């Protein structure tokens, strides 16, 4: 066994290493800490949102080793060694990722709470390369609920970036 935490409750935390937005960090985490809670509560990276905590909304979407996942359903300890990109790492005000800029330009959000998840999801979706038409974008982005109803603008923004080839 690589790790055996021993008897229940004997062990509080496990050491892991994560590269978050390009910075490698050695962290002590309890095994029941999700990646989402680690980011938000442990590292004050609150750009990643908790909308449902159960994989039902997509607000917590981050990129793990380049792939979009729901960080609320990932135990941090299981991501030992992974590379994590959150909305904060995608781009910053003043140096925005093309998707971030396109979301602003197309008014692809209102309250903004689902937005980081939408953008990370869109980045992951573009990297996957399976969606080409508006119809396919709609299906591929259906894992991110926007209660404000900005969907048509979200698709506009993503299509814009897709057509300009601006995304990495």
């Amino acid at each position, binding site marked *: *066994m*690589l*790790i*055996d*935490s*021993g*008897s*229940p*409750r004997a*062990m509080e935390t*496990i050491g892991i290493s994560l590269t978050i937005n390009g910075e490698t960090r050695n962290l002590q985490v309890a*095994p*029941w800490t*999700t990646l989402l809670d680690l980011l938000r509560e442990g590292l004050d990276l609150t750009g990643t949102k908790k909308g449902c*905590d*159960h*994989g039902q909304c*997509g607000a917590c*979407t981050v990129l793990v080793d380049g*792939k*979009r*996942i*729901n960080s*609320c*359903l*990932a*135990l941090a*300890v*299981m991501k030992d060694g992974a590379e994590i990109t959150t909305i904060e790492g995608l781009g910053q005000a003043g140096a925005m990722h093309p998707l971030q800029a396109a979301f602003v330009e197309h008014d692809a959000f209102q309250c903004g709470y689902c937005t980081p998840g939408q953008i990370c*999801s869109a980045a*992951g*979706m573009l990297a*996957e390369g*399976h*969606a080409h*038409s508006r*119809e*396919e974008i*709609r*299906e*591929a*982005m*259906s*894992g*991110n*609920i926007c209660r404000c109803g900005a969907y048509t603008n979200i698709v506009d923004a993503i299509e814009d970036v897709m057509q300009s080839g601006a995304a990495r």
Partner: protein
Amino acid sequence: MNRFDYVRAGTVAEAVQALSGANARLIAGGTNLVDLMKYNVERPDRLVDITRLPLNAIEDHEGGLRIGALVTNAIAAYDERVASRYPVLASAILAGATGQLRNAATTGGNLNQRTRCYYFYDDATPCNKREPGTGCPAIGGVNRIHAIFGISPTCIATHPSDMCVALAALDAEIRVAGPSGERSIPFSEYHRLPGGTPQFDNTLQPGEIVLSVDLPAQDTASHYTYLKLRDRLSYAFALVSVAAILDLDGDTVSRARFALGGVAHKPWRNAEAEAFLQGKAPTRENFEAAADIVIREATPQDGNAFKVELARRAIIRGLTQAAAGTPQSVSDKRIA
């Protein structure tokens, strides 16, 4: 989420060993288990992290394909061999969940995902599946999404998977390892009906771990479909789904296989209906007759009686799509 030990298994044998004794659960993608742990539905004493086991390959196997238990749903669905040789499986996987979930969820986890019954998920209510002997409030309660086939007086839950519906139609086998070695389980015997013990979803024995899903050699590329009907156009569990595969010999059905999702405690096949179609022409009349054979066995509740007619129509349409070679698109929401 309760407190638990966390164990990383380096080998299958270690995983099997770690499963013994304690109230242990295997964890890989975590998309259902972590969800259930947060709801206090699952309260394992030990989590065995199997993500480092060498079970993440898709390999040619006896003319068919062997999909490792840790292969994610996304990898499986977009794998060239799966997409070309078993497109019904790719289609079913992509009809389920979301891009994010499919990137995390694994083949083995998908097999073992638990029901979406409202009461099972809500630990403030009784549930025979969650706490045997407490009762089933879904019977007589809110049961829109529940089973119409194979129910028992103790449980009317459904198995929620899309992938498994296709695997059922494909006659896949599940290869497992346990304390007494490896064995293969025919797909139809993997999941079970609730009977008097609804707490058991499948026939895995204590300490067993899924190694792979094995797809037998077959040609399913031209006459198939996965048709899913749900309460919104994406990101929802099936009310009814149909995986259909037809072997056509000219104008004759030489073999018909179809399985239903969202209607029973396991992907639902009906041998009599499939046999009925054998040697017959792929006509609407024959498809209707086959569908009628299936729904004869339905025992619905107040809230899900519509599923009987919906299942009937879905079977007819699914078989029609398969016969015509016009499988349902995942992104084009017009139903072919």
